[in-house]
């Protein structure tokens, strides 16, 4: 139902094409000079070297996020200490010294020591339900499009994030031949989900390989992701509310989120 609803709302939006338009242009931002820690941490229940990304806030929209390379990062669970070390090849990426998997019923505490300040966050593993059938939207006879919603927008039973990596380099060795898109299923409905703004159109050929990763979300992480979606993916349509900072579980005074998530992966050939 919600998938159909989105289609109809997009059609509704056609009215406004004739009476309004959006253009790129300059806008002076009253930038705040304080630099804050940003944490992007998603530990999974897969046995692997887990990774955490640290960066700094920035003022200029044209900048890239400045990586943090001088932090001490560790995760503690059940008195077990997991140390993370900076990956010199990928500034801002911290990798656990040893492989481990997140297990159920344990609290995982992240601790980051950066510039004399200790930051921390706690998370407990979510559960994940099976991946539903994913069907890509065809474009013409033998192509598909990235960007349209291909997962349920709403579910009362499971909030989830889908990371879909598509690779068609075997078919088109030159040019853009890989893509990653993120989709969400939440247990609440926001008008911006339905009337989403125009998206970058990426067409890929039939026969591409897609790796679908489904992350089950606990409520606090889902709230964070929903909030970031409202500020990014869903922002700029015909209905919008007052902007607001996304929540965080990093204390004190940092941005981002630390979560432990259960994941399922599947590989499909898009046809």
């Amino acid at each position, binding site marked *: 139902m919600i998938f159909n609803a989105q289609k*109809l709302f997009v059609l509704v939006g056609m009215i406004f094409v004739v009476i309004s338009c959006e*253009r790129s242009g300059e*806008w002076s931002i009253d930038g705040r000079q304080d630099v804050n820690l940003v944490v992007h941490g998603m530990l999974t229940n897969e046995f692997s070297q887990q990774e955490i990304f640290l960066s700094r*806030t920035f003022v200029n929209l044209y900048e890239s996020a400045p990586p943090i390379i001088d932090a001490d990062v560790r995760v503690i669970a059940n008195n077990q200490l997991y140390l993370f070390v900076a990956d010199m090849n990928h500034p801002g990426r911290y990798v656990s010294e040893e492989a481990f998997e997140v297990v159920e019923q344990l609290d995982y505490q992240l601790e980051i020591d950066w510039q004399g300040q200790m930051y921390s966050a706690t998370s407990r593993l979510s559960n994940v339900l099976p991946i539903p059938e994913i069907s890509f939207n065809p474009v013409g006879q033998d192509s598909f499009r990235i960007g349209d919603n291909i997962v349920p927008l709403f579910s009362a039973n499971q909030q989830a994030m889908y990371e879909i990596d598509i690779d068609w380099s075997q078919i088109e060795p030159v040019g853009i031949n890989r893509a990653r898109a*993120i989709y969400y299923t939440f247990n609440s409905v926001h008008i911006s989900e339905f009337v989403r*703004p125009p998206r970058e159109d990426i067409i890929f050929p039939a026969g591409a390989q897609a790796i679908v990763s489904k992350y089950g979300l606990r409520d606090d992480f889902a709230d964070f992701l929903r909030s970031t979606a409202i500020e990014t993916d869903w922002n700029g349509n015909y209905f919008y509310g007052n902007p607001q900072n996304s929540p965080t579980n990093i204390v004190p005074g940092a941005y981002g989120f630390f979560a432990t998530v259960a994941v399922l992966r599947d590989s499909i050939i898009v046809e």
Partner: protein
Amino acid sequence: MMLKTCSFFLICMSWSLLALAQGDSRLTFHFNDVPLADILSEITRQSGIYFAYNPQVINVESTTSFSCEEEVAMSVIERLCTQEYLSSEIVEGQVILKNVDDDLLPSYMLTGFLTDSASGESLISATVALAGRGRGVYSNAYGYYAISLKRGVHRLTFSYVGYQDRVVEITIKKNEHLNLEMSVFATGLPVLTVKPGDDEMSSQQDLGKISLNSDDLNRLPELAGESGLVKNLENVPGVKQHSEISSFFYVRGGERDQNIIYIDDAPIYNPSHLLGLSSMVVPDFANNITVYKSDMPANVGDRLASVISIRTRDGNLNKFQLSGALNPFVNRVSAEIPIFKQRSSIFVSYRRSAYEPLYRQFTDKVDFFFQDFHFKWNYRMNNKNRFFITVIGSTDNFIARTGEVSRILWGNFAASFRWNRTFGPKLFSNTTLYTGNYSYTVTFPPNIWKSELGTISLKSDFTHYINQDLTSNFGVEAQGYFNTPGQLTLDSTTSVLPSFTRNYGRKLVVYYRSNIHVTNKLSLNVGARLINWENLGPMSYYRYNDDHEPVEKIDAPQGTYNSYLNVDPRLSLTYALPKSQFIKVSYGIYHQYLQLISNSISPYTAMELWLTASPHIKPQQSQHWAINYTKKWAERAMQFSGSAYYKTSENQIDFDGHSTIYLNEFLEGELRFGSTEAYGVEFLLKRDFGKLSMELGYTWSRVYRETNDINNDAEYPAFQDRPHDVGLLATFKASDRLSASAYWTSYSGSPITTPTGFYSFNGQTIPIYDERHNDRLPAYHRLDVACRYRLNKNVDKRFQHSLSFSLFNALGIKNIYAVKFNKIEEDGLFPEIPSNLLFDHQLSPSRVELTQFFPSLTYKFNL
């Protein structure tokens, strides 16, 4: 004094001795309904007594009845004088007749209905002024007037904007009923007329209460061929539109749900079409529009910011009339059908959008259109009883035929039955039974989402014209409310969703107000509105803690489970200063029991929800001080109005930016409550230079909010905080057939929240915000022009038709209504959201602009 100056003084022969002797004569005569002069002549004939009087003071042509049988002449004269409220004095043998002192004269009521001579339409807010007395009254919403007059001869001036004055000399000896027809000044194209009216009367027009007719609204250039009510209110100081394509408006710092529009007493909860692009209220269908921005009378209300009362046209009582308007976007037709001449008529209209050509070339699988239907029947049974039925329906349809037919349907329905009744000359009543309903349905078979709000109400309103110094208005109203904040009917495969039940509430209102003329210059309007609000069970609701989390579910049984009792006092003092100047001070407390639940700040109406007051949602409350000043220069056809106001409001609702409005069982927990402070000054200058008329309005105002858990509890400017707002309307009547108008508006940009920094997460750039509304949109400017040409040369012909051409935003100014920071620039294309997160994207700010250069051509006819 009068006797000395009157050139028509009648001097009778001075036979004083004879007169005295003849005073003992015995007279016999019987007159029935004859002029007083005939009776005096008969006395003179039988007794030889002569009378002297000033015919400009004593109307001897007024008829009366008198009898005597062998009665002494002086006794007859004394009795006649007593009957006719005259005094007599014998001077040099003549009986000199004078009026007795005014204070000794009894008062009678002159009542009646004022109507248009051609159509029979009621004339609302027409002036009935008593020459030389500084007094007058206005006709009410049904064209009824009642004025208290002393016995005697009076010269009354009936006036109405756009109509020829009628001066009526009337002798009042008893309660009289006078229905009066008035004729328009000149037919043809509407022009601005600054008509100062009767300078001696207290001004009813000030910036707190503005009365408009369809011509006032039609003077403004049109957008897409339609001059909608809301768009045309932007010329009223203190009324701010969200933006030019929106039907949202803000009055004196109030929120958009703090205004209510009544059409023939029935509330319209969403007066817009096409998500706000078009208004469902067409000015041509309105007889009168009254906008209350302050000093709302006690008989209307329960909104904090404004009440807009629209009286629709009754329909021509004398002849069949067909009219319509055709343009590329919207077409409408209306018919006025007399049923019984001068007694009963029907007004019926239909309007439908015609946007199909705009999208047909892209797809044939969708349809969107709106339509309105309007029906009104009136029956004037007699001078005491009148009946009216109004039915209004409107729908917006979005239909997609991809697979099974899906549909979004917005709809308003309003209906009212009104009964006017006069009980004697002093008591006028109106009883109204009305209903108003707004709902939308989203259908994706077999799933249906529905939200609705409805009201049914019975109201009896009485106006008691006690005497010339005191008029009282009182009444009682019982209202029932039902609303469903969102009900989803699902197919069996969809996940389980929270269930929502229909909420019921009722409101009982008792009100009283008095208009007291304390002196000739000072009048006092005082009243109060007693409101009892009740929520009705059975109902389940939640109690929330300070962190807005539900802590207890309460199952209320059948009956009242929550109530609020409030008294809203209203007070205003009007003082007439010398030289046609008026000053009015007003104060009022207002409560509101119904609120729009929307965290959207976009110009478009979305699928909004309404909630009533509840245990968690206390009624919104506002205190409003205002001072109004008006000066008229009749000789220059100029009027200046100024107003200053101060408002504080409590229990104001705000939202977290990311709050969940839909399908949320804990919706009330998403609400944040706070206060608002608003103040400002407004000015309006009107002048008529003959062919050229101008209206210049300016508003300086500020609005600040303070809400718990929003903006760190710190004060922030509200979205409608636009300090400066100026509008200039010029109308030029080049000839009887051709007129042109131009409207310029400029105002400060609205506050917006923009990022103060960014961070990156999962390949996305996420904004960081510091304070709410830390930034402001650029100032807004727009020029609209219009030209109207009457096609037929002969204005008296039955068939009238005209062409209107309008150019909206003629200078093509790019006004911004939103700024975004999440899109990538695409050459030759609109900015887009990046989809592929494997690659870095260069985001750039993007600015959303509204209409530039929107022309329209409309053909109107009247048959």
